[in-house]
């Protein structure tokens, strides 16, 4: 299964992926309209460490995911290998945030948890973080 991976060696910490992600999942066709003056809730985030360390983190789509096992609402499930959150079912208890060892799940704008779903549900076709990465630091591939 194709997943999103980060090649830390090439991650510049520009944070463009976060904005591309927020835009891709906004359902709005213009980035300015979608993001201007708003707090963004990207499903990928950049960790900026010391000594110029940067790396993007998004859902690993684990084979045996802690979030799925822990969700108190049964709102997280695996479909064809893709871990998905039913945001309708989610009550925002954030147990998934508590258990994800990657820190890849976070609350969205309405309090429900959200995470990378590989841009399969939006109009991008391919993960927006990958297509927009200026340095091929985020890739979408089979490993």
């Amino acid at each position, binding site marked *: 299964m194709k997943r999103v991976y*980060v090649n830390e060696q090439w991650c510049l910490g520009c944070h463009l992926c976060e904005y591309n992600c927020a835009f891709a999942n906004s359902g709005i066709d213009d980035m300015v309209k979608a993001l201007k003056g708003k707090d963004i809730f990207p499903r990928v985030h950049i960790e900026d*460490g010391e000594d110029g360390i940067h*790396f993007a983190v998004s859902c690993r789509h684990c084979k045996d995911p802690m979030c799925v096992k822990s969700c108190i609402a049964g709102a997280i499930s695996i479909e064809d290998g893709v871990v998905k959150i039913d945001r309708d079912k989610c009550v925002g*208890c*954030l*147990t998934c945030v*508590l258990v994800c060892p990657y820190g890849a799940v976070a*609350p969205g704008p309405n309090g429900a948890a959200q995470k990378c779903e590989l841009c399969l549900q939006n109009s991008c076709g391919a993960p927006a973080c990958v297509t927009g990465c200026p340095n091929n630091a985020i890739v979408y591939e089979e490993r």
Partner: protein
Amino acid sequence: MSEYVIIGNGTAAVGCIEGIRSADSESSITVISAEEHHVYSRPLISYYLEGKTDLEKMKYRPEDFYTKNNVKLIYGKAVKCDSKKQFITLADKQKLHYDKLCLCTGSSPFVPPFEGLDKVKNKFSFMTLDDALALEKALDKKAKVLIVGAGLIGLKCAEGIAERVGSITVCDLADRVLSSILDSKCAAVMQKRLEEHGISFLLGDTAVRFEKDKAVMKSGKEVRFDILVLAVGVRAETELARQTDCEVNRGIVIDTSMKTSTDSIYAAGDCAEGYDSSIGANRVLAILPNAYMQGRCAGINMAGGSSVFDDAVPMNSIGFFGLHCATAGSYPEDGEVCEEQVCGGIRRLYIKDGRLYGYMLIGDVNRAGIYTSLVREQTVFNEEDIDKLKKFPTLAIFSYESRRKKLGGVV
């Protein structure tokens, strides 16, 4: 072909069914459910009252879960267990044979013998969907509510009904709210948020006597109420196990493969007393993720697979009125406590010997799971990395190489 019987129809039971089916798609599975409901998530009952979910969405698994997994669901109560002949007897005298049995009986509310409690008409527990539905009927915009117990259940109940009643008072013998998961500093932050939303507290004080619409407190105070919710605590439901020669302490004792001390009997969930790696001993960890994982582990092992679940730690994610709280691990008194006030919240890390033993985050809980995994994996760090960790949960504490492994492969 085996006959699997699961007693209970909660999270642990679902874990058990999914565990069995991951290894055995053929044999029969029978689930005995005391509650006449499709499997639902108990922690959601407060969200139900709050209007954040509904009966349909509360279903823990989809409508077709039982049929898809070829599970026979029997509504009824198991009253007898014969572990020699491997039979279960239901209240309606129906007898069921099992090859492998999993006890997922959960817990039930513990009600202390308060004097005069029988005089109170409008009194409720807050454990099951039926409890919630009954309570809902009694709700009234003007009602004064007294909740006995400022733990997770009592406070979630308070949040759930806050907009639907006149006033809420919560009392607890402990000197702080959420005493099982928060230290006093963190509890104070949480209590403040609850008070901001109109909930008043009587802490370090408890009811000693009830009258029809009044509680008399230990301090002598009197609290009038229209509705009384009893959320003092829960007890593992171990009655069936006691009929066998299963070892039972506060819960049914299980090993790290979820087996009880009796052949062919497994236990999982709130009724079980499994290994808690944070203290290195067995204890009841009545939390939902734990129930699922124990259930699943039991299921796999019942079906002849091999699964070990030995890294359970206490952990909780809970929020009140938008203020979130994440906690995990243990809180050694002889270690370092690193505290930081962060935008409307607080972060307290319990560190000892280069290890994160436990933490409490209130407010910003983002990436708390990184802390939880460090607690769970008992990772030891040098001082420099610990310093990084104190600022926020980060994967930057790992080496480039281990990060490459963590993030670069299929996990």
